[in-house]
């Protein structure tokens, strides 16, 4: 019998490092998360459009993976996108069913009780203290108060962003319970996840509002881990997308992955990751799994790469090995404890090694649902934006209410590039 301690091990580790200098009892952290509850309320109009429905689904999925219980007060409207990890045809049915197969012991209910925070989606009723959640095609807003804004939009991007923002606020609502359980005070000052939160994805990817590239052709994906799960979760919800994904991954899913793998269920424990990912494909987005690792020595068996390559591996050297094969367009999703990052690379521009020059020390990596999600979400946005402009985006999901929580830079060549790429050599010559 798997336990919530095992499922939340990486989350507890991260929170221990970030809030308690590594000195708290991680089992107590996991227990406090499981004892916390937030209410998610939605109205029929907002939940009947893709922006609003995606916001609730994403918020539910990411919050549940924190182990935080959810009280769902929403109409059981028809599901717009019949996509994994959901299996039922109606919204509430689908979320209740999903909630029963995530973190062991997770509480999901539709009856009203005590909660630590309330999120009111769109025009749903809510008190002055409720966090109002509004989503549009490419925007998201969280604000505390009684003024409601209906969700409206046929694209999922704003909803995906709103859902990710909600999960971080839900975690903040659990802090008091975690402090009580551990007998320790979470470090201060620490950044605020909001509210308020205002996200305009069109500022990062103008093409999302102006015209999507929906026919993506063949895309190679290095890793079947959390970032790829998030990317695919998003891709499956973009109407009209066609892509043939080849996912390279050799590991089996574990219960400790459920804390952040957007498409994974607890019942997938022990299944090959590529088989599980294959099981979520649709008519529009197909998945071919290759049970392998992309390494310096065996990459020859995996060539040629597709024109577009997505990389979500922790191993920085693997990013370099992929870059050495010079794909036309390479998008790297990466995370730190409190940071998600996207870099994209094209021929003659700063390469993956210019922007990711240092290999990480091996070890168990702390992770949390909404940080991993942002990295994959950014990859999906970059992919369907069709833009070839190199990007270097940093997002601080724990700090979304602060200025510069989403920061974008032009990638820079690195004179110390580990690959001595042509762009860095050109800089040295100059």
């Amino acid at each position, binding site marked *: 019998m798997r336990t919530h301690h095992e499922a939340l091990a990486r989350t507890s580790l991260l929170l221990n490092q970030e809030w308690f200098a590594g000195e708290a009892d991680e089992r107590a952290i996991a227990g406090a998360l499981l004892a916390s509850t937030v209410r998610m309320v939605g109205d029929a109009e907002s939940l009947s459009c893709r922006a609003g429905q995606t916001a609730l689904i994403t918020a539910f999925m990411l919050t549940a993976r924190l182990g935080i219980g959810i009280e769902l007060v929403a109409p059981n409207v028809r599901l717009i996108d019949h996509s994994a990890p959901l299996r039922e045809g109606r919204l509430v049915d689908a979320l209740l069913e999903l909630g029963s197969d995530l973190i062991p012991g997770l509480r999901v209910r539709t009856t009203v009780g005590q909660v630590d925070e309330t999120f009111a989606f769109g025009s749903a009723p809510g008190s002055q203290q409720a966090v109002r959640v509004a989503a549009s095609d490419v925007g998201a807003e969280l604000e505390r108060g009684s003024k409601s804004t209906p969700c409206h939009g046929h694209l999922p991007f704003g909803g995906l962003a709103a859902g990710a923002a909600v999960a971080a606020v839900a975690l903040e609502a659990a802090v008091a319970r975690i402090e009580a359980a551990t007998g320790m005070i979470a470090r*201060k*000052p620490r950044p605020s996840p909001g509210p308020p939160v205002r996200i305009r994805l069109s500022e990062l990817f103008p093409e999302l509002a102006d015209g999507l590239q929906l026919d993506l052709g063949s895309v190679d994906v290095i890793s079947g881990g959390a970032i790829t799960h998030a990317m695919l979760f998003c891709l499956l919800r973009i109407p009209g997308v066609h892509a043939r994904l080849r996912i390279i991954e050799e590991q089996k899913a574990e219960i400790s992955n459920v804390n952040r793998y957007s498409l994974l269920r607890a019942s997938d424990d022990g299944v090959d990751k590529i088989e599980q990912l294959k099981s979520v494909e649709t008519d529009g987005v197909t998945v071919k799994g290759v049970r392998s690792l992309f390494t310096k020595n065996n990459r020859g068996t995996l060539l040629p790469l597709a024109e577009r390559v997505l990389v979500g591996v922790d191993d920085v050297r693997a990013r370099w090995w992929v870059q050495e094969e010079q794909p036309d367009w390479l998008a790297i999703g990466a995370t730190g404890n*409190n940071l998600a990052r996207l870099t994209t690379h094209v021929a003659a521009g700063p390469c993956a090694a210019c*922007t990711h020059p240092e290999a990480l020390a091996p070890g168990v990596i702390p992770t949390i649902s909404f940080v991993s999600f942002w990295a994959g979400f950014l990859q999906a946005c970059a992919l369907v934006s069709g833009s070839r402009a190199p990007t270097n985006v940093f*997002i601080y999901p724990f*700090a979304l209410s602060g*200025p510069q929580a989403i920061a974008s*830079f032009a*990638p*820079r060549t690195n004179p110390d590039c580990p690959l001595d790429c042509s762009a860095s050599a050109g800089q040295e010559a100059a």
Partner: protein
Amino acid sequence: MKRVAHGVLEQTFEHLRRCGEGRRECVVFLTGPLEIPDLIDQAVHPSHRASAGGYELASAGIADISTQLLAARRTVRAQVHTHPGVAYHSPHDDEFALVHTPGFLSLVIPRFALGPVGLDGAFLAERDRDGGWVAVPPDERLELC
């Protein structure tokens, strides 16, 4: 309130930008004479390693700077470093600040200091008596002269 002498913030941003190159964090110490406790009049750029996600001070570099400051009867009054995006104090920043004396200031500058020279968007933390940190508005602790 500490007075930051004219030009020191400009020097600080110059170090942060030149060393960080808009792609990695950087750190600078703000120093002042022992005899004038409220004055900051120099920016010192210590030896360190850095990436986009953090920085690490070199022990030898810290020792060199300490020796030089002692000889000149000067001290470090604040530590300044950059973040790629939002400015705040991370656990690493809490742990690896140079000075543990109450009142020591730690200033975080967003966007690799590529924005305008100044304290807009900056985050300032101050050591409290318990060795922890409290957030303080930059203009309540730093007066730019």
